[in-house]
């Protein structure tokens, strides 16, 4: 067995109206070369103009990842020739990126792990290319889209940790609204660096570029661990190189060796003057960062007494988590709110493929519904029916209880005669009960049937118990 060390470079497109250095629309399009501009096509004489929103969001992400932000932000040029890079260089950051030396807390199997962030920098995306046997097609819609690259330190040690980090990072993108981070649209792409070693020193690493789904990251890591293990087991040494992961073969293939590494000839971008960052500006951004998933899970567990499982379900979608917090702030206990939201509400949302903001479920309605059940006004089964009406008709639960005639029967004087009649009708089942057979549920069921489900189940159960004991 070897110690596995993994570092990730995660590219994520930022959610803005226009591109990073031009006025072209930053928007996913099915039609090639629709959102393009002279700047992104690198026509002679064009100059980059930094998108303020992209800049602000990149700083927000840097702060969310606990990075140090510089007093002056600068941009650099990365020079190389490729048709997907119209200017022949990419504007990126090396000298003074938006953030350095940060960390992200992740939780893997109940254990908290601190993942180091080497740096986070703002750059521009390239065009997308499609290669055919004797020609290639270029789509410049993506060229110039603001791209944030998050570089971890080599502080991950398994595929699980890597995937959890990616999930956590994606959560931060979503929570801050910096990106939608949709891997299905190539908005989030991952480079994996991986090395194996017998001891604490780092082994020789290989890099796998541009992996476009978390599942493929897992598969790539697993296959590369296997490959490097085999090399080391046979007494050979791993070469430092860039490899390509083939998702069909589940194998990695050599792309280029270290000797062929490109010299990107970085130098400071002369067309973007250094940008001073004031404390005020940083503070105004900090204020906009909401509490993130990791902290919310801990809060829900430690302060609200929820299980990790429930807490993690609740925080998965920020809208849900925010909804949950509003509901409990209105006086419902966290457990009930959590049960309702994670089962009934989310079940409905999943079934309908909707978001919480898409449906008519005002927080006060859910609170009312929960309280109706807790006060014994309606049964839990009835509450589910009312829920369906609330979300489709946007009516108050209390009004629905009335209009649907769903008031619960809690009056013993109504329930007791029904129970007595029932026990009279089935004397043999009482005998069976006393012999230890479970016929109790049958009696409850019958009462419910006769009251069309309106009898309060716990009151009913108590009366049945009392009446059986009398006989």
């Amino acid at each position, binding site marked *: 067995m070897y110690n596995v060390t993994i570092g990730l470079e995660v590219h994520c497109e930022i959610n803005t109206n226009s591109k990073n250095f031009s006025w072209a629309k930053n928007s996913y399009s099915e039609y090639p070369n629709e959102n393009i501009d*002279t700047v992104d*096509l*690198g*026509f*002679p*004489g*064009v*100059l*980059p*103009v*930094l998108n303020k929103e992209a800049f602000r969001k990149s700083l927000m992400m840097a702060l969310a990842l606990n990075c140090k932000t510089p007093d002056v932000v600068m941009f650099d*040029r990365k*020079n190389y*020739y*490729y*048709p997907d890079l*119209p*200017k*022949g*260089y990419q504007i990126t950051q090396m000298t003074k990126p938006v953030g350095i030396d940060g960390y992200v807390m992740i939780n893997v199997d109940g254990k908290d792990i601190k993942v180091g962030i080497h740096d986070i920098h703002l750059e521009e995306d390239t065009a997308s290319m499609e290669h055919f046997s004797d020609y*290639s097609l*270029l789509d410049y819609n993506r060229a110039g889209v603001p791209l944030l690259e998050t570089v971890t330190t080599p502080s991950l040690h398994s595929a699980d940790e890597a995937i959890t980090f990616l999930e956590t990072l994606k959560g931060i993108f979503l929570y801050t609204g910096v990106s939608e981070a949709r891997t299905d649209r190539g908005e989030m792409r991952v480079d994996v660096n991986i090395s194996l070693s017998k001891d604490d020193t780092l082994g020789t690493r290989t890099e796998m570029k541009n992996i476009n789904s978390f599942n493929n990251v897992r598969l790539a890591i697993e296959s590369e661990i296997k490959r490097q293990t085999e090399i080391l087991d046979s007494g050979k040494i791993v070469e430092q190189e860039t490899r390509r992961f083939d998702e069909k073969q589940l194998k990695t293939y050599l792309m280029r060796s270290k000797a062929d590494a490109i*010299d990107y*000839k970085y*130098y400071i971008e*002369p*067309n*973007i*003057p250094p940008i001073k960052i004031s404390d005020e500006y940083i503070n105004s951004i900090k204020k906009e960062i909401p509490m993130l998933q990791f902290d919310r899970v801990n809060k829900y567990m430690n302060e609200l007494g929820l299980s990790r499982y429930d807490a993690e379900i609740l925080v998965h979608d920020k809208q849900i988590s925010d909804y949950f917090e509003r509901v409990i702030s209105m006086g419902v206990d966290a457990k009930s709110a959590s049960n309702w939201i994670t089962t009934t509400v989310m079940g409905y949302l999943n079934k309908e493929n909707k978001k919480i903001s898409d449906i008519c479920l005002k927080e006060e309605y859910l609170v009312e519904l929960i309280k109706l059940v807790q006060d014994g006004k309606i049964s839990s089964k009835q509450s589910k029916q009312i829920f369906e009406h609330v979300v489709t008709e946007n009516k108050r639960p209390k009004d629905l209880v009335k209009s649907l005639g769903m008031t619960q029967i809690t009056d013993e004087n109504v329930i007791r005669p029904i129970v007595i009649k029932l026990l009279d009708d089935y004397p043999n089942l009482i005998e069976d009960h006393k012999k230890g057979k479970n016929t109790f549920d049958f009696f409850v069921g019958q009462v419910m049937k006769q009251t069309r489900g309106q009898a309060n189940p716990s009151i009913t159960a108590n009366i049945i118990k009392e009446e059986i004991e009398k006989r």
Partner: protein
Amino acid sequence: MKSIMDLRNDLDNNKTTHTDLFNEAILKAHKYQDEFNSFVTIMDNMYYTKSDTLIDGIPYALKDNFSTKGILTTASSNILKDYIPVYDATVYKKLKDAGAVLVGKTVLDELAMGGTGTTGHTGSVKNPWDPSRQIGGSSSGSAASVALGIVPFSIGSDTGDSIRKPAAFGGVVGFKPTYGRISRYGLFAFASSLDHVGVFARNVKDTAIVTDIIKGKDERDMTSLPDENINYVDNLDNDIKGKKLFYIKEVVDLNLYKDAGEETISVLNKFYETVEKCKKLGFEVDEVSVDEKLLKAIYPSYMTISCAEATSNNSNLTGIIFGPRGEGKNINEIMFDARTKGFSELIKRRFIQGSYILQRENQERLFKNAQRLRRIIVDKMNEFYEKYDAMILPASGGIAPKFDSEIDRMSDRYLILENHMAIANFGGFPSITIPNGMVNNMPIGLNITGACFKDSLTLNIANKIEEELGYKNLIKEEYDV
């Protein structure tokens, strides 16, 4: 030759029309084209939008490295020989909006890299004063078109001295203001940190009029400066009594040029005559000293930085999105072929140098050291500007060279006297060349370089000196008469 203000009066008094001025300019442009080769493109049609500025209806020429929508823009390079831009440079747009009328796009040294006017893809530009001589470059055609009297002003770009040197050789005024004063948007980049947009005219006042029109903050250029809300043309006659000028001993000391030819001595003597005239005008003029080693480092530092930036800036010229598509079995071969065929040998040599300079293992020793030297030189200049208002020096160590002349690039004259004007590009200083008389029947220039943001004062000083010298509105035709 009529100035912009003369033409303005003629237009306002209905003595002429913008159409007449355009047609006269076009006629002259064609008349001189074969002999002097100022233009890549002479306009067939007039595009005119009425305005109420001083340059409304005035014809002008534009260097062929400014993007002009729908009008061929070649940068005098084969790789762009058929390139028709889809957008307007800010300078061009401002001139259009101000009512100026474009006469043509002028020849430059290929991609603005060079100072001879001999490397453009449509051939060499000749000096209007003597066609056997160069006009200099890279804004060769813009200088020649004004020196020939085709247009009263033209637009150029200046990375090392590409406006101010040809202005000197052509006997006209050439000015580049502070870095960022005029938007570079639409100027085909050579070396972005050194590139400036500027103006040629036949007198300082016309220069100021045009600069007032084209200066200003541009949301398309992040390096453009905030607006100052002053008109340079209104401040040309401010009193300069007590203003302080300096010149650098190690550039103009006659003792350094004992072995130089009679021509250089004449240029230097003319300079010292001008120094005396400046004193008479009320300027204080001091001689200052700068380490010669630092001055000798200007040219190599300039070449190092400019070649490095040029390599990167011109990496968009691959024939993939625009320009002639190369041939080859794969994408790399296609780009390689387009660039091999599209650039002249000289350009390729500069790109290779630039690429070498930027390589990881060489950056510290070459690129970063050149930048350090640049910084030291600029700091030294700023020290002087704490005490002085402007530096004056000869724009060149001689008159315009013959086409077949051999230049010893390592000589002191070449290293310092021919290249010191790049200081203004290093620091982004406003810098102007005005005619300083004649040597061997060829014009020579006086360069005046002010402190950053002191554009108005620099023009003010230039205007006062110009008045005293009296070499205004020079053109060969009239001078001979």
